[in-house]
């Protein structure tokens, strides 16, 4: 117990003594040119979800590649991005409302699912399971996170009711398959996948929604059941994900404001800041070998590459890399490393605009060694860019809305994550 209390106390003292986070001050200091650039990237990225969502079903394609199936996670980011787009006046309220409603109705009444869990890939035209994919726990969680967020933007409509019914139908406990952990997924042909969410990565948004469920929650103990493996890189202690991919430190943070949450001495916001810094430093250590890497060109995360899609990442973790940089990764860390991310965005746009920037924002990745430039966009990568930029440009707008959700408050309460509640009595 003492072992748990001590880091908490140190952290608390650190928070009390340290000046307020510089996040909003940085936003205020933004030059008009930078603000315009960030808004352009955000606005263009949102267009992905307008163009690559099916007109009838609203389901969003996984990528811009021809023949791509719809992805449930991309559809979640689409719902959130459309809501953001109308709030910024880039999409009319009516158009955004219609598309969000159409999508939710498809999900509620047509899309194939199992006990509330949607299949990872769906036929964008029909909503039927595609490519024999699994009913996926994380992709369903990202879908619901996007849907719950969208509901906050359309409060006086029927959208909150539709979202509520989607959320309430998920049998989270079933996905535990009798274990203490949540399974990755289930297939009709073979049952539960042999993989469980057992260590740090993008799982926190999944667990938050599963524990906070109003109808079929999993026990709060599940929050403690996964491993927080720690390692050090360049003096930064990090609870790391296996791949070291930057997106694993970002997805949950797009929705949840971890700044004031304390998990037995771990502050995941600080952790993601350290992971982002480590990611940049790790690529910089190879800058002589890979010209894609530089002070202003960084971002090792799962993306397309010259040899196909790879879970690129940094140390601590697997640290797979081949000189491929994914711009979305540095954009997605803008809440953690505002200056470095902004410099990277400026650099990517000014130096590589012709090859790397398109009608839907930054393309997925590039690799200068191989003279390779992705022609494609990935829905989830455009989505994380939109949400993180929204948080950055508008004072944590997504966080404010999402943290007010009853389910999230329940998760914080049951898992005793509130910094104030976990303060040590003197």
């Amino acid at each position, binding site marked *: 117990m003492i072992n748990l209390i001590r880091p908490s106390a140190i952290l608390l003292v650190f928070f009390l003594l340290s000046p307020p986070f510089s996040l909003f001050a940085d936003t205020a200091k933004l030059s008009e040119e930078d603000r315009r650039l960030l808004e352009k990237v955000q606005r263009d990225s949102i267009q992905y979800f307008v163009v690559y969502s099916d007109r009838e079903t609203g389901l969003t394609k996984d*990528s811009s*590649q*021809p*023949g*791509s*199936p719809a992805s449930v996670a991309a559809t979640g980011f689409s719902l959130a991005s459309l809501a953001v787009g109308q709030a910024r006046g880039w999409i009319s309220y009516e158009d955004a409302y219609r598309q969000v409603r159409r999508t939710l109705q498809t999900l509620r009444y047509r899309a194939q699912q199992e006990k509330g869990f949607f299949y990872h*890939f769906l036929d964008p035209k029909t909503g*039927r399971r595609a*490519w*024999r*994919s699994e009913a996926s726990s994380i992709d369903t969680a990202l879908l619901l996170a996007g849907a719950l967020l969208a509901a906050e933007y359309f409060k006086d409509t029927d959208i909150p009711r539709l979202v509520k019914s989607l959320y309430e139908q998920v049998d989270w406990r079933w996905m535990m398959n009798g274990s203490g952990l949540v399974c*990755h997924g289930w297939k009709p042909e073979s049952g539960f996948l042999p*993989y469980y969410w057992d260590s740090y990565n993008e799982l926190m948004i999944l667990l938050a929604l599963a524990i906070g469920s109003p109808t079929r929650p999993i026990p709060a103990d599940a929050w403690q059941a996964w491993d927080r493996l720690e390692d050090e890189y360049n003096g930064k202690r990090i609870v790391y994900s296996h*791949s070291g991919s930057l997106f694993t430190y970002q997805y949950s943070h797009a929705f949840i404001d971890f700044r004031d949450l304390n998990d037995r001495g771990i502050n995941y916001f600080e952790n993601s800041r350290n992971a982002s810094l480590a990611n940049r430093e790790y690529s910089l250590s190879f800058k002589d070998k890979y010209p894609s890497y530089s002070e202003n060109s960084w971002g090792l995360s*799962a993306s397309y590459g010259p040899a*196909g*899609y*790879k*879970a690129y990442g940094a140390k601590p973790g*697997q640290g797979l890399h081949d000189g491929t940089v994914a711009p979305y990764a540095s954009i997605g860390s803008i809440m953690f490393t505002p200056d470095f991310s902004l410099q990277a965005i400026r650099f990517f746009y000014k130096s590589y605009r012709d090859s790397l920037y398109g009608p839907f924002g930054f393309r997925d990745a590039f690799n200068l060694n191989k003279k390779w430039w992705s022609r494609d966009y990935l829905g989830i990568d455009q989505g994380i860019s939109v949400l993180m930029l929204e948080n950055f440009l508008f004072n944590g707008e997504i966080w404010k809305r999402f943290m007010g959700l009853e389910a999230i408050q329940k998760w914080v309460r049951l898992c005793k994550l509130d910094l104030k509640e976990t303060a040590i009595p003197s």
Partner: protein
Amino acid sequence: MSAKERRRHFLVNKPLQIRYMLTISLLLIIVTFISLASFYFGLWGDILRALTNEQLRNDLLTATRLQQYEESRYPQPGRTDEAYSFNRQVERLRERQQDVLKGVLDQTNQNLIAKLAFLFFLIAMGTIFLSHKIAGPLYRFQKVLDEMERGNLTVRCHLRKFDEAMAVGDSFNRVLQFFDSAIGRVKKITQEDEKNPDRLRSRLNEELSKFKTST
């Protein structure tokens, strides 16, 4: 069945029977043609669309990409060789083609069932219309016969313009008219010659001799 009862000629009313034969045959031909055409064009149309070079190329790319997603999410130590990856891609593609074909067949069958259901509805309606052309006259004959049984010979069988058995109906009415007139005349003779039995008998015999009876 005795030889006497056995029918030797099946076309006893050629125009009527040929008309019905043609009508029913035409209906069957339409149903068969629509079923076959729907099945053939639906099936092949969808298969050809699903298996265009472009679609196959897209499926191949998607199979590769999904395999890469899986390998990124679930790295398999010791299974990183290209052959394994290629085999999995081929497997994905095979499963995909199976699912596509199953989807095409399911869709074609669904379309066919919908079309056949509509055709059966039309045929059912047509059958009622056709049978009414026979059942209608039969019903009217029955009503007239009931009236005759009650001694009413003033009734007539009125058939509609396109009812079958128009000729039979005309004959039937002529017979009825004949009996009606004959019985009427007998009644009149009886009244006129009530006081002259010899004349009455003579005129009745003359009148009744027009009928050929078993006894």
